[in-house]
């Protein structure tokens, strides 16, 4: 409970700090950024900054309130201490990493699809192989029968055996 509340409160306030930081006129002047930012509303952002604290106080969760207050002073300092140039550089790096990761994911996805297709084709060939083996065994049995009849010297049997063998040699699809 406290963990979830604290993290949510810190995230909301950190967002407000980020907005106030990015639109702060003095910061923008100091780092040669164009100013002023149109539609800037520092009071609304300040309200959002402190709102989680008010909510936590109202809920009576003083543990979460204290952690939120302490965390926002540390995180706020950490965010503001990074100059706009460093933020831009970090953002660009993140974008590059993101793009490279997206490319990798897309390549890996294409490879995965190729592998899946190959595996599926192989599995179909295995299934067909079973039928082919059964067919061949049937043919061998017919030939063995014919051979046995020929050995016994019974021409009728030979004829029958030959017919049987010939019948056996006709592909199943054609017979059907």
């Amino acid at each position, binding site marked *: 409970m406290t963990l979830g509340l604290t993290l949510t409160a810190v995230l909301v306030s950190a967002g407000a700090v980020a907005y106030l930081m990015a639109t702060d006129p003095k910061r923008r002047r100091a780092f040669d950024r164009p100013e002023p930012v149109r539609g800037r509303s520092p009071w609304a952002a300040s309200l959002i900054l402190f709102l989680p604290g008010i909510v936590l106080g109202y809920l009576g969760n*003083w543990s979460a309130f204290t952690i939120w207050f302490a965390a926002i002073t540390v995180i706020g300092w950490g965010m503001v201490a990074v100059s706009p140039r460093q933020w831009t550089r970090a953002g660009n790096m993140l974008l590059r990493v993101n793009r490279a990761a997206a490319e990798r994911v897309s390549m890996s996805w294409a490879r995965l699809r190729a592998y899946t297709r190959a595996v599926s084709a192989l599995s179909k060939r295995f299934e067909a192989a079973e039928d082919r083996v059964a067919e061949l065994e049937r043919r061998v049995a017919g030939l063995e029968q014919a051979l046995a009849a020929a050995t016994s010297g019974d021409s009728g049997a030979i004829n029958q055996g030959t017919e049987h063998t010939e019948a056996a040699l006709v592909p199943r699809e054609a017979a059907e």
Partner: protein
Amino acid sequence: MLDSLSQTQVKRLTAVHGWSGVILGLLLYAVVITGTVVVFADEIETWSLGGTGEEHSLSGIPGVDAKVRDALFPMGKGYLKEVQIRPTIDGHLRVFPHVHAVNPKTGELGDLGRMMIIDRETGAYRLKEEGFSSDNPHWFEGSALSEFLVDVHVQLYMPRPWGLIVTGILGLLTMAAGVTGLLMHRHVIRDLFVAERPGARLVSSRDRHVLAASWSLPFTFLLGFTGSFLSFAISIGLPMMAMVAFGGDREKMIETLLAAPKQEDHRPVPSTDLNAVIADAAKRAGGPVNAMTVMNYGRADAVIQTSHDAQDGEMMPVNMVYDGASGAFMGEKPLIGKQASVGGTLVELVFPLHFGSFAGVLSKSVWVGLGGAMCFVILSGLRLWVKRRGEDALWRNFGVAVVTVGYGLPFAMVASAHAFFLARYAGDAAWWTGAGFLIGAALGILIGLALRESKRLGRTFCRLLAAGCLLLPVIRMATGGAAWIGSGGPATGAVIAIDMAFLLMGAGLWYATGRGNAQPADLRPEPAE
């Protein structure tokens, strides 16, 4: 902050702010950096013990009652006046029946009794010795490292009460620096979002110091106040109260302030079942029993106090009181006094606010961040002072001292941890932990004297610190600590997390000082702007 201040007043404030920082800043840095580390004192204790024991509460130890009965019978010398029962960091049972008596060696009031550590499974005695706890540091050898760091933080490893008085003054200094800094700086709110301006100029150093100081001001003040309160309460406040209100009888004062109320009755009565008390207290407090104290064990006026962590969303830990003879629940007890009061509550609040331990690892992590910010404020302030006076050779040397202490202290702390592990393997960890710190500090001073150039000094210290951090987990495991996996393990989460933190710190420091990366600590002088 205040536009109404005249130039002269601002100059005076700057002098007070700057000179107090220059004179006591490095000592304050020592207190703050050790305080930042000892926020995780419990975890450091588990880590230093190489712990695989997961259970750190009485609720998880089987048959506490039978073990305590065996341990306390027969027992003379009045030790049953107060029996402390708590788990050791590796999950065994520590029973310490004792009295408060003046230690002839120190002249101070101390705990005299019989220390027993009982195996949680077999009930065999792992330790059974008698004496003053202050004369037997080996009773707490497992916690020697965290105890040492706490001692440096609390009283700078100086004898009582002088160390406490010094740290109390440093707490006052923190508050004074916060107030004077706030008054000096006229545009705190307007500059709250201005990062360090580029160019490594004097104004950049000023930005860096002011920004960190402004953001951390509320908690710098709070931590300074609570720290100062604790130091002065122990060193001056309580002895004074004992003199004024209890005729110098400190034991009576402690009893009045801390003990649970019950009419004195010396009749021998068998103690209630402690297992039942532990189970009931855990249910009522909504959490396991961390420790318990039995006053007048085996008597009709016996009282049991159980202590628990703060409940979810609360700041204060919970204490329950039971009748030691019948086992009846007597109610919740405030830390100080017999009934809840505004004063008592305010004093109770000092502890969680200073230690940051009220919500486990979450609050402790944030408190480490606060400590880190305070360290940054102190060092950046000292660097700013030196940069303003760069023409003077004396201040340049002071700049070298700032770098030496800035890096040398963490290096000495890492050295003390190395010494602790090696000594645990060889013996007498308590002595060698302090010696390791001093050896590390002496090595740091020698390096500072030899190099005397901030840039090279910073790089050398970073490399040494990195090597020390990277080696610590290896040394820990090599000297019998639990491994991450396999034989001797698995280690607990806290152990692995601290190992990982050291490895990351070491790798980060090594990388930061690598070729082509930013160089640390350049204190070359620059004329004032």
